[in-house]
């Protein structure tokens, strides 16, 4: 039963601001994912929560109590490291049992709990081996076992799946999520993989350059990205974003220079209210771009620049003048590079960003 709160936490390494004024609230039992590109400060944030780094300023609170000065061992946390950091000279049994041993838990109790944990993770047959004799997936499970055996109040996970191959990663993703739901332990999970974040998180905190860009449920992050960075970082293939200018007096017409987009007046209203001026950026996800081989009412003409067929789906990159737009289409669309194609943007799914601040307007 632990909630974790960060209040205006910063961490500088010399001149570098690794974590910059971060506010974050992780509720009890919540699965919070810190998502961002490498070097965005997400791992440092995790290490601050673990107590492996001391914040330059700001407060870290567990259940409302400041833990800034608390040693890692006294924070009742468990951490899974990217490279697992198993103790190479100890058998799996001792890897799991070390924490219980140093806390002076009686032997029978230790044996029982190791056995239960190993059972839960399906590593019972590995207890007598050393980490060097295990496969990546098995090591990963041992690392996980070491974390859960001590019934911590917070799980911290630093890209625990990134060293696994794709198939195993996908499977462990599901298992990890299920495990967390079962244990109901507050979990803070760091990853740069937006699919992982979308699939596992209750809420996601997207970070960039040490700052939190947006905190929200996966759906919120996906459907209402707070700014251009979040919009482009989450989703694959990434959102199409291109510059546009408001031209009509009623603000209902945008032009990209290559083609015009008519927007509903409610949207136009928001642009006016935002005070952004006529220069904006327009974003639209590939699944909201319709593409067709034949001209239809309101469709715009383009040339096929690239076709990426992934089996069940096909991503068609269209070129209009200097602008490239990726559209999602069924593989049966039958377009080839160089073909003429027609497309239409689903206007109600448009995202409009302020060009200067890159913040979402609507």
């Amino acid at each position, binding site marked *: 039963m632990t909630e974790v709160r960060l209040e205006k936490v910063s961490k500088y390494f010399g001149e570098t601001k690794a974590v910059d004024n971060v506010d974050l609230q992780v509720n009890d039992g919540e699965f919070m994912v810190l998502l961002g590109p490498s070097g965005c400060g997400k791992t440092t944030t995790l290490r601050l929560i673990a107590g492996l780094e001391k914040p330059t300023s700001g407060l870290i609170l567990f259940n409302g109590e400041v833990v800034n000065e608390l040693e*890692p*061992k006294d924070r009742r946390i*468990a*951490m899974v490291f990217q490279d697992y*950091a*198993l103790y190479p000279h100890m058998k799996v049994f001792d890897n799991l049992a070390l*924490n219980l041993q140093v806390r002076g838990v009686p032997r029978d109790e230790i044996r029982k709990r190791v056995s239960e944990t190993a059972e839960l993770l399906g590593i019972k047959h590995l207890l007598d081996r050393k980490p060097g004799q295990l496969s990546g997936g098995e090591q990963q499970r041992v690392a996980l076992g*070491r974390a859960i055996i*001590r019934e911590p109040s917070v799980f911290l996970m630093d890209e625990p799946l990134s060293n696994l191959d794709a198939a195993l990663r996908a499977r462990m993703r599901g298992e990890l999520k299920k495990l967390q739901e079962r244990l109901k332990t507050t979990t803070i999970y760091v990853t740069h993989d937006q699919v992982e974040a979308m699939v596992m998180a209750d809420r996601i905190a997207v970070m960039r350059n040490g700052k939190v860009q947006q905190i929200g449920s996966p759906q919120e992050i996906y459907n209402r990205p707070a700014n251009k960075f979040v919009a482009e970082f989450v989703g694959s293939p990434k959102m199409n974003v291109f510059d546009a200018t408001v031209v009509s007096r009623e603000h209902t017409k945008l032009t990209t220079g290559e083609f015009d987009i008519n927007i509903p007046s409610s949207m136009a209203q928001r642009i006016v209210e935002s005070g952004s001026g006529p220069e904006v950026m327009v974003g639209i996800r590939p699944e909201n771009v319709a593409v067709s081989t034949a001209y239809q009412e309101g469709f715009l003409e383009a040339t096929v620049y690239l076709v990426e067929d992934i089996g069940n789906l096909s991503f068609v990159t269209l070129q209009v003048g200097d602008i490239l737009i990726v559209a999602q289409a069924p593989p049966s669309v039958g377009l080839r590079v160089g073909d003429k194609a027609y497309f239409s943007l689903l206007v109600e799914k448009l995202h409009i960003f302020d060009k200067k601040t890159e913040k979402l307007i609507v």
Partner: protein
Amino acid sequence: MANLQNNRRGRRKILRTVLIYFATIIAVIFFIFPIYWLIATSLKTRAQAFSTPPLFVWEPTVRNFIDIFLKRQTEIEAITGQELELATGAETFFYNSFIVTFSSIAIATVIGVLAAYSFSRYQPHGTNTLMFFILSTRMLPAIVVAIPIYFFYRSLGLYNTHIGLVLLYTMFNLPFAVWMMKSFFDEVPRDIEQAALVDGSNPIKVFYKIALPQVLVGLGATIGFLIINVWNEFLFALLLTERATRTVPVMIAGTRGEVGINWGLIAAIETLYILPALVLIFVLQRFLLRGMTFGTVRGAK
């Protein structure tokens, strides 16, 4: 055709192997021969040791080995008229060598390992400067400080004491221990120790339960090199000891026979003296090799 070629290739391969073995054997003989000659001489009488041409077949005698420990003899020193006891009671000297080596290495290892770990993990302010300072103490030839240390030891009462030699050897060995162990600690991923910290261990437990077991190979190598350093040290042992604390290398240099030099006796002492070193090197060879090639291949286990 193909068969013929295969044959030729096979023959060339055999020739290559033979040449390699031949070269290896020559090299081994080159290094082993002095040791063989030493042991052979220790098993010869004085006359046999001096015979020309050298004897390769003779009736071995263990007289020299008995003499080392049992024979008591004295000689009047020509200049001072002092009465000297010679080449006898070698057990004292072996005992001295052993005590001095063991103690100084125990101290140097403990201090060195702890210092290396702190430098590697906690990086106190000025780590680089301190590490350089430690290294710089090894840059002077030892003989430069010989005279100051001699007077220093005289006035402090450390002259002709075990503790004096132990302190000195500890001082000489510490830089080596710190530098070598630091690089071994540096190679161990920090994540593992941090995992243990998070996992509820305090820093001291992390040190001896997690960090230390991972550098055992390095520790073995370090201790091996230190032992070789101290066991063979001559200069300061000569300067700072008298009969009561004299180590074997100094004793060997001072050993003479009744008439001229008794090489058989010297060879016997030396044989006994290199024996522990040989055994040790044999036991530690895996570690020593690791110490020598350390850092040449990154991430090799």
